[in-house]
């Protein structure tokens, strides 16, 4: 029959591009994206009593330097604690196996991240290992609650000393 019109290929490419953009938006910018693992990394696990506001894809840091991110967060049904799976960049493969993990907040109200505190062991963590020493997220509600229970009456009895209104010494770990 007559030759294919030249605009047909343009139309087809445009429709393909549109659907490609839709697929990109749907998979990369929504919660669908959290399931996809990255390539050049290894995974570590850590259990926390309470992860606070930690989210998947939050950064993992040592000494403030980003070394990876949180891959997934699941509840362990038997132990009722949160299992946090982290993917760490391959180049940081010499983390001592007695390192500890804690959940910190960047800034007073910023987003939360996992901070690793390196230990002194000569052996290193491997792919799939678990960090045994963990510390939960510090919740401001709990701190306020403790302050109200412990600090409240004390500051009421000795109102003149301003130092007594300081929160209990569980501030920075």
């Amino acid at each position: 029959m007559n030759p294919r019109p030249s605009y047909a290929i343009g139309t087809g490419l445009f429709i393909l591009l549109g659907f490609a953009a839709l697929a990109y938006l749907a998979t990369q910018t929504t919660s669908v994206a959290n399931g996809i693992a990255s390539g050049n990394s290894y995974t570590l696990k850590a259990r926390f009593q309470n992860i606070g506001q930690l989210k998947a894809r939050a950064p993992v840091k040592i000494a403030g330097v980003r070394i990876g991110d949180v891959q997934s967060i699941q509840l362990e049904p038997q132990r009722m604690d949160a299992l946090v799976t982290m993917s760490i960049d391959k180049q940081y493969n010499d983390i001592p196996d007695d390192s500890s993990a804690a959940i910190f907040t960047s800034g007073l109200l910023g987003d939360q991240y996992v901070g690793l505190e390196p230990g002194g062991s000569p052996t290193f963590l491997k792919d799939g290992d678990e960090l045994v020493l963990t510390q939960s997220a510090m919740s401001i509600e709990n701190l306020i609650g403790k302050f109200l229970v412990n600090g409240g009456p004390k500051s009421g009895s000795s109102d003149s000393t301003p130092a007594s209104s300081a929160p209990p010494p569980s501030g920075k770990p």
Partner: protein
Amino acid sequence: MNANLRRNWLLQGIVSLGECGLFFVAVLGALPKSLRYWRETCRQVWFVGAMSLVIVMTCGLFVGMVLALQLYYTLSIFGGTAALGTVVALSLFRELGPVVTALLVAGRAGTAVTAEIGLMRATDQLDAMGMMAVDPLAYVASPRFLAGVIAMPLLACVFNAMGIFGGHLVGVTWLGLDNGTFWGNMTSTVSLQRDIIDGLYKSIVFGGVVSLIAVFQGYTAPPTSEGVAYSTTRTVVFSSIVILAFDFVMTAFMT
């Protein structure tokens, strides 16, 4: 005299609104018949969609970039720059993507459609089609209407993707926000159903509205060069007003 003129104006507005509604029904009625002319529809999708890609992609990039820049400044006052990705994505998907794309398409393609049909009317091409037993509604109006409905959501998706890219460019590459924070907060907040699909509904409606107004204005344009010029202007004016009004109504219903 003045009151008379004003009443005339009002009456004119109501009359053309009614005509537009009847025209919409006629176009819908001609849709099944226009499937026979699917090549024409395909050519219109190419014209409305593919030819608008350059302007939509450029504008999407810059809208995303300026959004990230402005919101970074505002959010940094509250120490909430970590939410930049979320805010850029939500404002693009829910609001700016559909609306700005519709305004751009109204300016870029709607005017062309109006002028084309208006000149067809002025040079009696539409009547000639009727003489040849080709229904001009099915051959001229419906394919253009359908093409707008098809092309607009796809263009909005492209706009959104470019906007996210622009926001990432400014937020992460330029202002030094953490890449994982940017994407992580975005992916944990943006929902496929509530944000992306609702935005697509909006742009489907806008596509229908813009192309209906463009086709209607062309179809009813006075057959003079001045008439076609006025109709083209009215296409942009009415499209912009209706897009923004519909946007408010649809947002109020969806949230």
